[in-house]
């Protein structure tokens, strides 16, 4: 079977109508129009499976974990720790002990900047790219200002890919300790060549971190195949709840790194004079964690894995191709970036219509998109833009919704010409 035929078959295998029925919010109307939700890259909607898992926990099986010596606590601990196994499997991590639960990807990156950062010496450098979300920029700026680390920025090409030759150049002096880049851009949709980037980083003696917040939603992630050293993602973009994210890191790194936050659950022994730390992963999980949200994340992972990433990726590739074709017919519309590989995220401008106006007028027609700098101000500056509008797709997105977007954009444009 050709690749196109395989994709078509996978797309047909995915019963989007049945999937949509599992998302209570998608049957809502906004401004008396059916909701067309094209803002999943900001946060995805939640299926019944996730909602039910969380309410089931709160209604029937809830207590604080790890410390309780009673039935309810033990069962809740089991449910919570089972998610660690699930996440390890989800990322193909070698060990469950390498999975750290955080609040979101932002916190996971801050943890690395704090604790891996503590191992770095003044004069060493961290490399990011021009298309990073602020979450993978500000923690490194803070480390730079705190610890005398140099922050280097790998440029992107006009098409919106990381310039790998330039990246290699930035690593040439051997001072770079870490390359921290996105695995999929939240603005351009670029899927970065993570495996190649890891090879480049390792050849120069640097570790590599990927911000997988966007990527894990769309494709199967395998941290070992990528050759990653750190990998982060957040639950709420993966059809899971807010308040739960993940850091995966190689065990040797986690063991060498000092704790991030101090408190309960992360200790081995405590006296007023000195405390010793628990083993990983608990060393990095101070305080009562987001128990209910973690269980919700587990339900989300089960849910997407039951659908299967082959079908999800094929569906979204078909949607993205459909969107790019249809958007090309809108006069004055410019899609930002033509990366080699794109996920279901499309940023665009339309003549000189302000993206805020585009979003407001789309919203009045029930179409939800994002508009603004998308927490990537330096990238906007690099592109010579102050803002874009962005449509992003999920497993529940229908081609007809993209048609509604395009038809409404044409109507909006008529306001301005």
């Amino acid at each position: 079977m050709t690749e196109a035929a395989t994709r078509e078959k996978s797309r047909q295998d995915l019963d989007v109508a049945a999937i949509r029925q599992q998302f209570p919010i998608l049957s809502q109307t906004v401004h008396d129009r059916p909701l067309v939700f094209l803002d999943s890259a900001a946060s995805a909607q939640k299926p019944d499976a996730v909602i039910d898992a969380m309410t089931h926990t709160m209604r029937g099986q809830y207590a604080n974990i790890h410390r309780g010596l009673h039935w309810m606590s033990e069962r809740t601990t089991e449910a919570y720790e089972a998610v660690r196994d699930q996440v390890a499997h989800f990322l193909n991590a070698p060990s469950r002990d390498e999975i750290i639960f955080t609040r979101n990807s932002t916190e996971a990156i801050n943890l690395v900047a704090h604790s891996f950062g503590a191992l770095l010496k003044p004069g060493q450098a961290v490399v990011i790219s021009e298309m990073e979300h602020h979450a993978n920029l500000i923690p490194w700026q803070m480390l730079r200002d705190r610890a005398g680390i140099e922050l280097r920025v790998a440029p992107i090409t006009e098409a919106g890919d990381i310039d790998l030759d330039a990246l290699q150049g930035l690593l040439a002096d051997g001072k770079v300790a870490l390359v921290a880049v996105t695995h999929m851009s939240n603005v351009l949709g670029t899927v970065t060549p993570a495996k190649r980037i890891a090879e480049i980083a390792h050849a120069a003696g640097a570790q590599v971190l990927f911000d997988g917040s966007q990527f894990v939603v769309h494709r199967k992630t395998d941290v070992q195949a990528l050759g990653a050293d750190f990998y982060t993602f957040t639950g709420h973009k993966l059809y899971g709840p807010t308040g739960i994210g993940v850091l995966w890191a190689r065990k040797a790194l986690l063991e060498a790194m000092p704790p991030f936050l101090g408190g309960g659950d992360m200790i081995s022994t405590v006296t007023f004079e000195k405390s010793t730390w628990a083993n990983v992963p608990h060393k990095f999980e101070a305080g009562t964690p987001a128990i209910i949200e973690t269980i919700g994340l587990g339900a989300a992972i089960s849910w997407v894995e039951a659908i299967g990433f082959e079908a999800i990726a094929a569906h979204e590739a078909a949607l993205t191709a459909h969107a790019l074709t249809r958007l090309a017919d809108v006069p004055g519309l410019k899609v930002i970036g033509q990366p080699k590989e794109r996920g279901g995220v499309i940023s665009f401008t339309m003549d000189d219509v302000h993206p805020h106006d585009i979003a407001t007028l789309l919203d009045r027609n029930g179409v939800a998109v994002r508009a603004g700098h998308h927490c990537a101000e330096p990238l906007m500056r690099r592109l010579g833009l102050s803002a874009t509008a962005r449509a992003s797709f999920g497993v529940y997105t229908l081609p007809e919704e993209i048609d509604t977007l395009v038809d409404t954009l044409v109507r909006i444009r008529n306001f301005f010409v």
Partner: protein
Amino acid sequence: MDAPFVIPEEATASEAIDAIRDELDVFDDWMERYQYIIEMGRKLPPFPPEWCDDAHRVPGCQSQVWLEAREEGGKLYFAGLSDAAIVCGLVALLLRVYSGRSCAEIMNTDPKFLRDLGLVQALSTNRGNGVEAMARAIRSAAAAQTA
């Protein structure tokens, strides 16, 4: 007073509010209302590009909004601009109400008319707050004048 400052069409702020209400009532659908609002913004007197700076920028607006005030003959006149068309239209409607009025009249004109006319709700919450920020900037200019 000359351009770019807005000369009032109606004799009082409250007449201006009534006129805007009547005009908005003509439309039965919000897309038409937006078209009207955008048209109002286009009719604003040209705002000098050199005033599009931080000193003239109204804080609290997601889109960029610039305002300038000038006093003449006991009245305060305003000029304004936004880089977004709908917000620019709302600037035009605000200035139609507030420009060319005495400080006392400005202070007595409660910006809640923006909500009554659905103009705050015309934007998403974050941007709607920005429209109210503009009204605050106008009223604080009047308050500064009387202080």
